């Protein structure tokens, strides 16, 4: 188990199937991550990014495979940044991975890993997978999933759509809610979002845990005022005829978006175990 991110570089194989580890690696912190992934850095910073190691492998023709290892503040954050845009459930590497056209991403413990080999070839894909096995094998611990995602009822939940975040920008991940931080989401308010399949359009369930009931109540008030126009029961139809509903349980706020009717909203709330 690496004690710090530098150890990954030492542990990575020097050569693999004709690809040699280039020297030296690059290291990034929140202060300079944007020099490496300009425009993408904020996504990582919003998940408590700590530092990153970037290692290149090159072959005789100077083709490149880029290995990027991100150390996040916690395992839930590593899961969150991984799940941010995943499309499928795939457990071949780490605690969950996604592979498409030469790019593999996976998470394990507090690490999020990207191995990129464009353009994709069958031979390069094998090298990518071998590197992934090496990196994942070097991380001894499995990280805990964010506790709040366990509260999402499993019935009709599309597992690949489960998201975890604590920055309001990601509130609109599947369904446009607001340009504003209408639920006062911040670093101390873990949130989970999932998409539910049914006949007709999908609906969405958002859960936000606040440090205390007073903070949750304030968010409840704001949401009802701004998006529910003060609807007494905490739910109202949109102009498209879909239903939005909010329920607060102490320090937990539950919001259903895009439900077909009020009955569905109530049924979803009833299935949440808090």
């Amino acid at each position, binding site marked *: 188990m690496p004690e710090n991110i530098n150890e990954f570089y030492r542990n990575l194989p020097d050569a693999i199937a004709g690809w040699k580890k280039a020297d030296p690696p690059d290291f990034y912190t929140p202060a300079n991550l*944007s020099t490496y*992934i*300009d*425009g*993408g*850095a*904020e*996504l*990582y910073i919003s998940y408590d990014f700590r530092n990153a190691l970037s290692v290149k492998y090159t072959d005789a023709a100077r083709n490149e495979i*880029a290995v*990027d290892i*991100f150390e996040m503040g916690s395992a839930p954050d590593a899961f969150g940044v991984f799940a*941010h*845009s*995943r*499309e499928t459930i795939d457990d071949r590497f780490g605690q969950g991975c*996604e592979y*498409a*056209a*030469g*790019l593999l*991403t996976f998470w394990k413990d507090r690490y999020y890993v*990207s191995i*990129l080999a*464009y*353009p*994709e070839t069958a031979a390069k894909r094998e090298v990518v997978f071998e590197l992934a096995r090496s990196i994942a094998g070097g991380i001894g611990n499995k990280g805990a999933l964010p506790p709040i995602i366990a509260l999402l009822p499993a019935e009709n939940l599309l597992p690949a759509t489960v998201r975890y975040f604590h920055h309001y*920008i*990601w509130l*609109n*991940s*599947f*369904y*446009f809610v607001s*340009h504003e931080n209408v639920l006062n989401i911040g670093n101390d308010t873990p949130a989970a979002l999932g998409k539910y399949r049914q006949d007709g*359009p*999908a609906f969405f369930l958002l859960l936000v845990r606040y440090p205390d009931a007073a903070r949750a109540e304030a968010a409840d008030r704001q949401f009802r005022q701004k998006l529910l126009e003060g609807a007494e029961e905490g739910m109202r139809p949109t102009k498209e005829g879909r239903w939005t509903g909010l329920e607060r349980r102490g320090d937990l706020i539950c919001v259903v978006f895009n439900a077909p009717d009020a009955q569905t909203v109530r049924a979803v709330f009833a299935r949440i175990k808090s």
Partner: protein
Amino acid sequence: MKPGRPISRRQFIRSASAAAIGTSLLFSGQEMTAPAGRSRVVLVRDPNVLDENGNPRYAVVEEMLDTGIKALTGKPDPQTAWKTIIRPDDIVGIKNNRWSYLRTTAEVENYFKKRILEVGVKEANISVDDLGVLRNPIFQKATALINARPMRSHHWAGVGSLIKNYIMFIPEPISIHPDSCADLASIWDLPVVKGKTRLNVLVMFTPQFHSFGPHSFNPKYVWKYHGLMLGFDPVAVDATGLRIIEGIRREYFAEDRPLNPPAKHIAIADTKYHLGTADPAKIELVKVGYDKESFV
């Protein structure tokens, strides 16, 4: 990647009758909404623009841009059209985008240089740049800017847009990042660019409609759209490009799948900064050429 459907060159529609209305927009402030209250956006598509390796064919790019500039200006030939945009004594900065996975492309940049030289601008007074614009002497004293880039999904701004392409005109680009780059349009009011943009071109040969991973690119999520969009109003062009990206996402994912995060900076460029219009009702969209799966 979804392949485009081939059509013959003869099927390429050359008429731009909808653009027959002339324009009087000249030389400055062209990023503002046209006086008539509608912003013209020209979409030109040709399925032959990419070769078998996915690289742009210069001859087709030139024909598309010539067609587009005629439709945009209402002028009968590209040379006359360019004379309404650029003066011989202009100092011209061509602001491109050099993101390694999806570039403005040399073909588009070389077209600009060719037509600008034809207007009579000295070669020494033309420069193409992206990251170095603030240090580039031509951009420092530019009297005219051409703004051209591809549209792509973006982890923080929703999309990489024409509005966003000017982010390198501020010394600390990261300073504009809060709230998912909501205030990008404020850059357009800085003296280094204000009133100088003569033409905006959104390169839609292979727009990227979704991304994952730290490098924000995956060839699985680019779409062979074979298009170019031209306009004087960057907000109108971006808003139309955004509709195309959203349409591609609907087609690919077989459901409404909003960009995450939403590209709010485009709407805010209209409603807060009045840089142009994002309202489709105020955009005159002129489509020229191949129109299958245009999504607008």
